[in-house]
């Protein structure tokens, strides 16, 4: 045993020194992140030029030069085009979006009845937000209300025809209302259907397995437009004479079946990731097939593939825009329909309308993808613990 000569050992911690001046401040940051080497500098210059080319134009078009209010095309047309703006003017025509906002949201839903979709939207948000925030308690009740009670209530309220509410045909629906109801029902139908298909694909029964494989691979191999064509042109011929489906319902079936095939593949990935021990453990406890899947396997598998599920939702939400091709008026369809309004025909109308539609779609999709990343991170830490 040797005694330490304490004079050579430091007993208190050395204070952290601040970084040398060359590594501090905005100058160092720029050196490190923008001009680290000659190639880097060139890239930075290219980047700056790119941003300088696009950004000022975009801002001046969308905000500075934009026309925010107005009642008809003259507000958004130049003098040469018969309007009030100076020649060479280029700005967004938000007045058009403003004037048609009701249509963009509800389509031709009767104006006196528009409180109904608005009420549904308020309830939707009121039930969705607590469901999404992990800290809020009573998730079970909330989920039952959201997935069980809300759709029935929304269906009664939107379609009407009972309790003294006037009936509103689905052919009058339009705009964001159609986009959202198509996606919501599509999500609610495609997830359970996708789970069933995924289980079927991994089933030990050869015929069930084959049927599921054929369905999934066929649907995934063809474009949604073909499915929608089939729903809109062929389905009527498949049914007995005189029986016809509502057009909205037909699109709904097409979109749901399409999404279900993609969902099935995502869920299958989750099922495959569950270790075999879990299946065997469930078997050794004497659980039946559905008990095994429902209580042991699926809860773990679905948790694993939440990002994939949300990505499928995002894809489906974007895909609903395709129904405008089979002349249904979702958000994009309504926006495009209004381009032919003579009262608003200017060179800026189409661009402004499309940018607005893009912005709405972007908002929803970006929100969903960010939420999925948040969930992923949350569930990730729970595993590590």
């Amino acid at each position: 045993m040797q005694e330490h000569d304490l004079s050579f050992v430091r007993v208190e911690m050395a204070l952290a020194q601040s970084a040398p001046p060359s590594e501090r401040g905005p100058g160092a940051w720029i050196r490190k992140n923008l001009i680290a080497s000659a190639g880097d500098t060139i890239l930075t210059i290219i980047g700056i030029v790119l941003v300088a080319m696009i950004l000022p134009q975009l801002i001046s078009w969308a905000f500075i030069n934009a026309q925010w209010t107005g009642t008809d095309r003259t507000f958004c047309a130049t003098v040469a085009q018969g309007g009030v703006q100076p020649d060479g003017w280029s700005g967004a025509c938000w007045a058009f979006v403003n004037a048609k906002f009701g249509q963009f949201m509800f389509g031709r839903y009767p104006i006196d009845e528009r409180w109904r979709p608005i009420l549904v939207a308020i309830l939707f948000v009121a039930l969705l937000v607590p469901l999404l925030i992990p800290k809020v308690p009573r998730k079970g009740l909330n989920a039952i209300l959201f997935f069980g009670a809300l759709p029935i209530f929304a269906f009664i309220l939107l379609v009407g025809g009972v309790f003294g509410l006037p009936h509103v045909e689905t052919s009058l629906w339009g705009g964001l209302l159609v986009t959202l109801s198509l996606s919501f029902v599509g999500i609610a139908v495609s997830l359970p259907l996708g789970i069933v298909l995924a289980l079927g694909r991994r089933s030990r029964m050869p015929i069930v397995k084959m049927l599921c494989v054929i369905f999934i691979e066929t649907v995934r191999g063809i474009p949604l437009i073909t499915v929608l064509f089939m729903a809109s042109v062929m389905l009527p011929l498949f049914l007995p004479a005189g029986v016809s489906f509502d057009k909205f319902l037909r699109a709904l079936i097409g979109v749901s079946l399409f999404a279900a095939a993609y969902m099935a593949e995502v869920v299958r990935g989750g099922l495959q990731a569950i270790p075999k021990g879990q299946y065997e453990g469930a078997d050794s406890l004497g659980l039946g097939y559905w008990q095994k899947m429902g209580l042991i396997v699926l809860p773990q598998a679905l948790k694993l593939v939440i990002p994939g599920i949300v990505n499928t939702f995002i894809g489906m939400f974007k895909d609903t825009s395709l129904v405008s091709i089979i002349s249904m008026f979702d958000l994009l369809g309504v926006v495009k329909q209004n381009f032919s309004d003579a009262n608003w025909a200017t060179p800026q109308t189409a661009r402004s309308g499309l940018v607005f539609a893009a912005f709405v779609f972007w908002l929803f999709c970006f929100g969903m993808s960010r939420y999925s990343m948040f969930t992923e991170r949350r569930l990730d830490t729970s595993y590590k613990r």
Partner: protein
Amino acid sequence: MASQEILREEPSRGSFINDPKVRGIFFQAVVIIVLVALVWWIVQNTIDNLTRLRIASGFGFLRGRAGFDISDSAIAYSSDSTYGRAIVVGFINTLIVAAAGIVTATFIGFILGIGRLSHNWLIRKICMVYVEVFRNIPPLLVIFFWYSGVLSVLPPPRESINLPFGSFLNQRGFYFLRPIWGEGSWLILVALLLGIAMAWFVARKAHQRQMATGQQFPVFWTSTALIIGLPLLAYALSGFPLSFDYPKQSTFNLTGGFQVKPEFLSLYLALSFYTAAFIAEIVRAGIMGVSKGQTEAAGALGLRPGSILRLVVIPQAMRIVIPPLTSQYLNLTKNSSLAIAIGYPDLTATTGTVLNQTGQAIECVLIMMVVYLALSLLTSAIMNVVNARMALVER
């Protein structure tokens, strides 16, 4: 021992109904019966409907005269051609736009994916904004943007923008000169093929030599010289047989030359730019999936950063990248059916027109489904082969 055997021979516990095998067979039988009944019901309904409405069925209509024109056609087609040929024209157009889109989307996607991991803050941010914007917008909207963008920015045909080599750009598309191959120009083609073959051979030899001796050989420059030089030589030897057809101004449009229509241009650009955002994410995930130790080890061996990326990181990243890349290629091919929205005559659009002119809904939708399905299966098959070659070879 004996008692165990007796146990085994005993009928399994419980009754016959609880036997999972019996249950499985029973359940499958039910599924088949239901399915057959459903199919029979649908077929019966369809036959009833068709006979009631006196709609002829069968594929005989494909031999009928189409009577309509198609704007973009890679093979000879006129209004006198058959419906079948019109569908083939559409199919070829789908192939063209899908192939062009896949190449461009991969190119842009790789640049963006690498850009997102750049040390340069500005480049990183630009790539991120691009990816986040395009990933969250429906492809149909992107197509409309390009189409209305292309149409509104470009000038009318009489004020065409002149570009070098006698090419023009206007609202009606992009025009450039079309080579006319004169007598003896087959020599040039032969020389080109010869050049490619020789370049391949040189590359192989160089690789073998490097493996054996470690000496490198400037493969790139030699190959370039061979592939460009040989045809040029043949061109000179055969007496300069090549002439060009220049686009010229006529009453309405430019005529002559080679024309790329704005419909194709916007569909192709939209699909490329849209899919590139997804490919960028895949590439980023792939590169991040290669462990940092690989890069550091390569650096320790003295490789330069460019070589590290090319020789060490990307080959490993490709293994992660290829499967999701395949599904993006398939998505792009399927998304090309959105051509119908801007009037590019792809398979969906021409088949749709045929459907409309003949009223043969079932046959036409069937054709569309079968062709897209075949295309998808073919693409996955090719990518599976590529994947197998790329897969880790354990020694």
